[in-house]
Structures are given as structure tokens and as C-alpha cells.
């Protein structure tokens, strides 16, 4: 009984949190459908939601493999990007010279449009998954590096002093203060990177690939199947949300103190 009540509370809370967005989304979809039917818009200009659904249903046999490829590239790229981001953050936060030399270059690196870089990466790494993983990693390392470096550099000086007064060395200060203090910032960076990871993989595939949602889009475009392009768009959005939620779960596990409810908040 209590379990049921708890579940009901959970559902009603979720409805309270996401209900308004869901209603708005539903209204948009209905309006879109009505618009296309009333004005008889050509399907290769703007397909109705019902037509997009048909497009999804017609290619549902092909989609799992494309999704698998894209998701694998996104997750791998995010992992490598996060690792590189953390490594850079440690260097930037720890060594002032590195900060002065590297920081401007990092910012410049983010101004190179990925559509320019992606074809080069395909020349260097071939048509397989590697260039896509590299695109995602290049996109993802930056927010992780910037946020983590910020977190590492803004560790509470008095807390650092406390550990030092206990006779703690630099490594212990890092372990007991700087790293845990930087974790929430790291996860903020990782969330941003996660939101862009699937899109990054698709951009990589779009230039040239043998599998993946980017390839699915290029094929759909060349045959003027705009409905299928929209199918891919919806899938990319769903996958991005999935990845974002996964990172959020990870953050809850790794930084539980950030999600503690105090007495006043619960009552």
C-alpha cells in the first residue's frame, strides 16, 4: 500500500514537473498537423507529424543499427573528451605557465567550425567510427576542461589551510579538498558536453559514414524523404536526452552531498 502511494506520489510529482512541457509539445504537434492539412503543404517541404510517424514505421527495421552506431560514437567520444578535459584542467589549474599558454589556444580551437574539420578527420582517420569519436571528443573536452579547471582553482582557501595545518601535503590537499570541490563543476561541464555529443556524432557521420543516423539523414535527403529527416531529428533529441539523464544519474552517485535535502526543504 505504502509502495503504491509512493509510486503515485512519484508519478504526480513527475506530472507536475514535466506536465506543462508535455502539454505544450502536444499542442505544437496538433497545430503542426492541422497547419499541414489545412494548407495542404507538400510533404517534401514540411511533412505532417502523422507522415513522420509513417516514415519511422517504414524504416524501423533499419534504425536500431544506425542508433547503435551513433550512440556508441557519442558515448566513446564523450568518454575520451571528458578524460582529455580533466587532464587539461589539472594542468591549467596546477601550472600557471600552462594556463597562460594553453587557455587562449583552447578558446581558438573552439572557433574552428566542425563542418570544416570533419572532412579532414575523415581523410586522416578513414570512414569508420574513429573520426566521429574524434569530433565528439573535440566538442566535448572544452566545456569539461573549462568547468573543471574553474572548480579546481576555486577550492576554498580556508579548507586548504585546514588540511595543511594538519600537516597535509599537496597531494592530500588535492585529494581531500580540490578534487571533491571540483566534482560538481566537472559534472556541469560533462552535462553540456553530453547534450552536444549525439549531435557531434551525427555531424561526423553526415560528412561520410557507412552507418549511423547521419548516414540515414543523408540518404533521406537525397531521396527527398523529409519525413525521415524528421525521424532522425526526433531520435537525435531522444538520444541526447538519454545521455544527459545518464550523466545526471552519474552526478547524483558521485556527488551525493549536492542532492541532500535539508529539513526546511523537505517539510
Amino acid at each position: 500500500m505504502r509502495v503504491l502511494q509512493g509510486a503515485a506520489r512519484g508519478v504526480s510529482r513527475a506530472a507536475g514537473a514535466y506536465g506543462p512541457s508535455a502539454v505544450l509539445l502536444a499542442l505544437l504537434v496538433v497545430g503542426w498537423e492541422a497547419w499541414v492539412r489545412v494548407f495542404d503543404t507538400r510533404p517534401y517541404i514540411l511533412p505532417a507529424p502523422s507522415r513522420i510517424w509513417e516514415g519511422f514505421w517504414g524504416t524501423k527495421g533499419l534504425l536500431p543499427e544506425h542508433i547503435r552506431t551513433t550512440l556508441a560514437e557519442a558515448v566513446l567520444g564523450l568518454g575520451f573528451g571528458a578524460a582529455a578535459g580533466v587532464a587539461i584542467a589539472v594542468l591549467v589549474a596546477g601550472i600557471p605557465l600552462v594556463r597562460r599558454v594553453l587557455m587562449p589556444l583552447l578558446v581558438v580551437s573552439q572557433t574552428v567550425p566542425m563542418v570544416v574539420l570533419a572532412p579532414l578527420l575523415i581523410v586522416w582517420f578513414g570512414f569508420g567510427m574513429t573520426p566521429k569519436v574524434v569530433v565528439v571528443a573535440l566538442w566535448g573536452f572544452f566545456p569539461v576542461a573549462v568547468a573543471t579547471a574553474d572548480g579546481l582553482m576555486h577550492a576554498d582557501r580556508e579548507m586548504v589551510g585546514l588540511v595543511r595545518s594538519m600537516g597535509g601535503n599537496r597531494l592530500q590537499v588535492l585529494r581531500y579538498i580540490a578534487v571533491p570541490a571540483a566534482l560538481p563543476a566537472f559534472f556541469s561541464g560533462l552535462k553540456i558536453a553530453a547534450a552536444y555529443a549525439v549531435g557531434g556524432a551525427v555531424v561526423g557521420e553526415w560528412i561520410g559514414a557507412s552507418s549511423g543516423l547521419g548516414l540515414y539523414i543523408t540518404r533521406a535527403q537525397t531521396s527527398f524523404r523529409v519525413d525521415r529527416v524528421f525521424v532522425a531529428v526526433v531520435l537525435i533529441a531522444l538520444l541526447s536526452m538519454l545521455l544527459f539523464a545518464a550523466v545526471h544519474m552519474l552526478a547524483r552517485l558521485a556527488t551525493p552531498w549536492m542532492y541532500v535535502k535539508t529539513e526546511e526543504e523537505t517539510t
Partner: protein
Amino acid sequence: MVTPAVRVEGLEHTFRQKGREVRALDRVDLEVGEGEFVALVGPSGCGKSTLLRVLAGLLVPTGGSAEVGGVSAVGRPGLVAFMPQKDLLLPWRRALANAALGLEVHGVPRKEARARARALFGVFGLEGFEQAWPVQMSGGMRQRLALLRTFLVPSRVLLLDEPFGALDAITRRGMHAWLQAVLALEPRTVLLVTHDVEEALVLADRVVVMSPRPGRLVEEVAAPFPRAREPGIVTSPGFVAAKARVLAALGEGGGTLAEAGEERRAPGA
């Protein structure tokens, strides 16, 4: 001659602030005997905290010497158990892990450190809160946890920088009685910084008065009672007389306590 637990000789400190030279400490001499409880009172900005930071090894003074247990503490942290003004509980550690921090930093294996911390949770009135996060605890509990953490640092000398400054008067009085009980159980040498004269006289064996910046020692008043004082002692004639002496010394120093209350955190302190 027995080596005192803490010995400070000719201690001076000058720092630069906005291009001006600021003299924080001026030829301070102070000895604290083994097991003694000394309170340091003075207006804000008189260099009390600076003195503690020097003894904690966190600040290298511009002159003089500071020893803990016969060893120079200048630029050498790890000799004392230091409790800063803020409780500075690490938000990412549960209460038990926070208490065990000093032991872990000193290389005690985590499991043993936490077992030793757990054993003292009852004494510090924290039983049942071992797994609580700091944000879930009240101000008084946080302060007791910070004190427990300080007691667990493997050092005989405690430096307490206004440990009860953030608490309301009633909670503070309770903490005084409780701290005396804990010290009877777990004796330590204590150097307490406060600007609450009553607190100093209730807790300490000896009260040392500092002048406003540049901080000098201007008066020493022995508490006219043995330890284990009842809260009611504050109205006894002996206590009132001692309090009057301390307040007079503070007045002569040029600052008043009202001023001291205005600016809680001294710049550069």
C-alpha cells in the same frame, strides 16, 4: 626546566595592504604550559588570529620565534590541532568522515581513523549523526563536530579561533559547560582566541589581553577559580572583579568591546 607546550618570543608580523605597511603583531611573548588553558582576548584586528595562524604553520611571520613542544612551528604545519573561525566542515564528507579527517591526513588507515572517531561521537553529543551530511546538522552540532575533528588531530596542543563565535548566547553557554567536561575527560593544552571576556574567564586558567593593532600583550589575568566552573559563577564577586580587570585592560588598549563586535572578521587576520 620543562619545555612549555607553546612558546612565542618577540613575534612580529607586518604585511602590505593597498601599498601600506600594516603591523599586525608587535613583539609578542607568550608561554603556554603543558595542560594549561589560555584565552587570548582583544578587539577585532588585533592579530589574535594571525598569532594562531603562525603557530599552525600557515603563516610565516616577519620576525620572532614560535615553538610548539620545543620545535619551531614557523612554516611548519602539522604540529598543532587548529580550529579556524568557520567550522569548515567538508560538505562532501559525512559527519564521521569529517571527524576522522585529521587522522587520515596523518596517515592513519581510513577504517581505523573512522573507528576512533566513532568512539567519541557519544562524548561529543553527536551519537546517531555519524552518517549525516554537514548541511543536515544544526549550528551547535556542526561546531561540536568541528571540535571533535580538532580533538582527533594527533596533537596535544589545540588552537581554537573563536570556536563559538557563530552561536547564539544560550547554545554558547551550553557549549562552555560541555567543553570543560570534554577537557576533563581528554586533557589537552588549549590556546583559545575570543573577544567574549566572559567566555575567556569561564573556560581558561589564564586570560591574556591584547591591544588593538599592532597587537601587543597588555595584561594577564589568572582566572580566580579551579576548573569545572558552574555557569552561575559569572555573578560571583571574584569573577566580576576578574572581568573588570580584563575589561579595564581592553579599555586602556584604546579599543572598546563595542568596536570589537562591529567588525567580526579582521582583514588580513
